[in-house]
């Protein structure tokens, strides 16, 4: 009885998270564009799917992704081997980014811009290799970002110093990068962090900060995602300059 109640309240919470989208789309469709809602039945089923999906995701987060991220952080901290921790950090950043669907889409888009802008020859082969090069560039930059972020947690450096360096890097690269690449580069920072990466990386950071003496999980534990969205901008502009 109690668990049934818990399921209902979890489903209700997910529905509440979704409600703003339903209201916005409903309002613009009915009141502003003044058109009926097409495929009403399918939309209702879709909404039910989204609500179920969000509920299962949050459940799985607390059961699987958060605990494993923290367990590994504690295990690395107690083992005291920084080399393997940094290897893990790189693998996690690189591995989760290279297969990211949003990144694949952005890379293909960038390749067609480069072809239209005359930066590369306009044929399928050159486009594919350009897009693939870009994907590897971004994935390496995210791996690199997680390494720096983990190293910062170990050393306890204030995050703002590294962010200032990163921002300066972005500004300097903007001056020299070809203008066609700038929009893509700025956007690539936002698309790299997927829904599975974020909870894992957050749990890793918080776990590390709470198992290393003298670190505060609130001040030192967060910030990994911030680096993962900053370095791709610099690397992608660099890629645009080199290729």
């Amino acid at each position, binding site marked *: 009885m109690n668990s049934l109640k818990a399921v209902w309240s979890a489903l209700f919470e997910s529905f509440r*998270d979704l409600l*703003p*989208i339903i*209201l*916005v*789309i409903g309002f613009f469709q009915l009141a*502003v564009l003044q058109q009926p*809602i097409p495929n009403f039945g*399918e939309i209702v*089923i*879709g*909404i039910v*799917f*989204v609500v*179920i*999906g*969000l509920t*299962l*995701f*949050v*459940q*799985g987060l607390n*059961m*699987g*992704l*958060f*605990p*494993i991220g923290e367990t590994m952080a504690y*295990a690395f901290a107690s083992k005291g081997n920084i080399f393997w921790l940094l290897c*893990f950090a790189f693998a*996690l950043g690189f*591995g*989760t980014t290279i*297969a990211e*669907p949003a990144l694949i889409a952005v890379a293909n888009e960038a390749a067609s811009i480069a072809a*239209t802008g005359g930066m590369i020859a306009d044929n399928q082969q050159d486009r594919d290799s350009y897009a693939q090069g870009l994907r590897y560039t971004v994935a390496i930059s995210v791996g690199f970002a997680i390494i720096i972020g983990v190293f910062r947690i170990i050393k306890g450096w204030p995050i*703002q110093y590294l962010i200032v360096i990163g*921002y300066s890097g972005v500004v300097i690269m*903007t001056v020299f990068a070809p*203008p066609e690449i700038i*929009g893509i580069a*700025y*956007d690539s920072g936002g*698309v790299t962090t997927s*829904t*599975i990466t*974020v*909870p*894992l990386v*957050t749990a890793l950071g*918080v776990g590390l900060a709470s198992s290393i003496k003298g670190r505060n*999980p*609130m*001040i*030192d*534990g*967060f910030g*990994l*995602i911030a680096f993962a*969205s900053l370095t791709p901008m610099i690397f992608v502009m660099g890629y645009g300059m080199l290729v």
Partner: protein
Amino acid sequence: MMHLFIDLVYVILDTVWDVVPIAAIIFGFQFVILRKPVPNLKRIIIGFLLVLLGLGFFLEGLQAALFPLGRLMAQQLTDPAFIASNNSDGILQWWDYYWVYLFAFAIGFATTIAEPSLLAVAIKANQVSAGAIGTWGLRIAVALGVAIGIALGVFRIVTGTPLYWYIISGYVFVLVQTMFAPRLIIALAYDSGGVTTSTVTVPLVAALGLGLASTVPGRNPLLDGFGLIAFASLFPIMSVLGYAQLSEWKERRNQHSASRQAAIPKKPTQ
């Protein structure tokens, strides 16, 4: 209706492919390097399966219900015929796009509230701060940041001003804010910039940007259609820092007025 369920199976299979490399890295390091038994391994594996299933349902639901309608809406709202119907002189100025700005604001806010990555970070921040940072407080602050960011990003596409002006002045603003913000919130605020834009926000916002850039006269979709995501990752940093500054300032004022009231001797009644 049936095709929804068939699509669902495909989407779940796709998600499996996204998760396999991550699981391989985690369990590879766990068993080869760390060589320590994982407590509650069964529970963790069930958790992974729930995440898989959950994302499958979530993505299929979005693709079936909300994305097609949202994309269509972005197209219709940016259609010059629709925008011209609101103005009499026939020359489109940037303020004639007010429905587009409003839609950008509203859809930015609404999709961010439903973003699973942000929910994950909010849950973690709530745990770590022992409840001091409410999940809703953080999510609403971030969502407002995304809403303002996307509305401004749409304004940029309409006016055709260079993207880097906005982003670089945004950086300067964030750095100034950082100097005055409470230390505890800084890392979380920087993180919230990266988590806002994933599964829900990117497809709808990208459709809006490309739609607008291909209909506003003088814009090139390839050059001007991008950049909305960048706005959506920058402005939440400001809004979260601002939210923390505001609550700190309020608290200080309350304490201040409380101590002042305590200092003033009460008037004798009668």
